[in-house]
């Protein structure tokens, strides 16, 4: 573990500066570019006040912190990792600060993901946000930490899984992952996650001959989560997308 750098966020603590915490997962061998400028905000450079990254191993150990120059338009995660490239999955936490005028539009970081030398199409996704954002600003009366993902109705040739990470600083949690199959069958797994810990949970594409239809993630608070599809037999990513939250 490297010593912490001085926080890039400290100067940004002012009443009109609000935070958004999000995270993605990085594996070796992929181009992985994160967009820092937000296309729906013409003055995005002015509004993104600060961004600090935290890199965590699956057990939640902080490997490194990195302040990002907010004048940059994109962030190359493979270059960021460099020689310290992961031997396994690493969770990268984006701790961003924005001028409050950017809300209620939630300024997702959008990402491009493609295996080097791979043959599968590039993947584009919005980085999963878990801290802050919309709920207090859209007039929601209740919020559940219940997320779901619907699979396409076609034969599945990929291996599916869910990547999930706990962005808490102090709190451990247990998440419940339920997979639903045609005809109503379902299978449930639980995973315990300490602060900043993360896991990849395999999903069976079939259960007693029934095809997977959807997956749901329940937790006491919002986690960073993605549904992942890997092509057989080489494991190249062909799906990487966040689950969807329902507000009540």
């Amino acid at each position: 573990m490297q010593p912490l750098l001085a926080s890039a966020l400290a100067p940004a603590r002012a009443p009109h500066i609000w935070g958004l915490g999000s995270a993605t997962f990085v594996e070796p061998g992929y181009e992985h570019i994160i967009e820092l400028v937000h296309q729906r905000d013409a003055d995005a450079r002015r509004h993104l006040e600060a961004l600090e990254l935290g890199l965590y191993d699956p057990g939640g150990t902080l490997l490194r912190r990195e302040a990002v120059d907010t004048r940059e338009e994109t962030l190359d995660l493979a270059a960021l990792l460099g020689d310290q490239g992961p031997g396994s999955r690493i969770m990268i936490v984006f701790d961003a600060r924005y001028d409050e005028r950017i809300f209620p539009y939630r300024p997702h970081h959008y990402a491009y993901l493609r295996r080097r030398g791979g043959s599968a199409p590039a993947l584009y996704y919005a980085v999963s946000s878990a801290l802050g954002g919309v709920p207090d600003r859209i007039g929601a009366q209740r919020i559940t930490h219940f997320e779901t993902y619907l699979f396409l109705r076609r034969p599945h040739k990929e291996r599916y899984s869910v990547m999930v990470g706990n962005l808490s600083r102090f709190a451990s949690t247990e998440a419940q992952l339920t997979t639903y199959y045609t005809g109503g069958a379902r299978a449930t797994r639980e995973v315990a996650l300490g602060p900043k810990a993360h896991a990849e949970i395999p999903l069976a594409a079939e259960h007693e001959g029934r095809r997977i239809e959807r997956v749901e993630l329940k937790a006491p608070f919002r986690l960073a989560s993605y549904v992942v599809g890997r092509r057989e037999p080489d494991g190249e990513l062909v799906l990487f997308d966040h689950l969807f939250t329902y507000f009540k």
Partner: protein
Amino acid sequence: MTPATSAPPDDGLLLCYCTNLTVGELREACQSGRWPLADKERTGKLCTGCVGDLLYCLKAFGGRDVE
């Protein structure tokens, strides 16, 4: 959901990203019996991933739980 660390929270840490509440603001409010603060009463009610940390800090500071 359980506390996982006994490390004292840093006052400057942004605790609730949904209501812009810092650890220090919560600590001070709890110690002076002013929690929930007038402009932060929605903290913990419409939160996202902040809830676990909020409950941890409320317990650490002796504050009233989220209703």
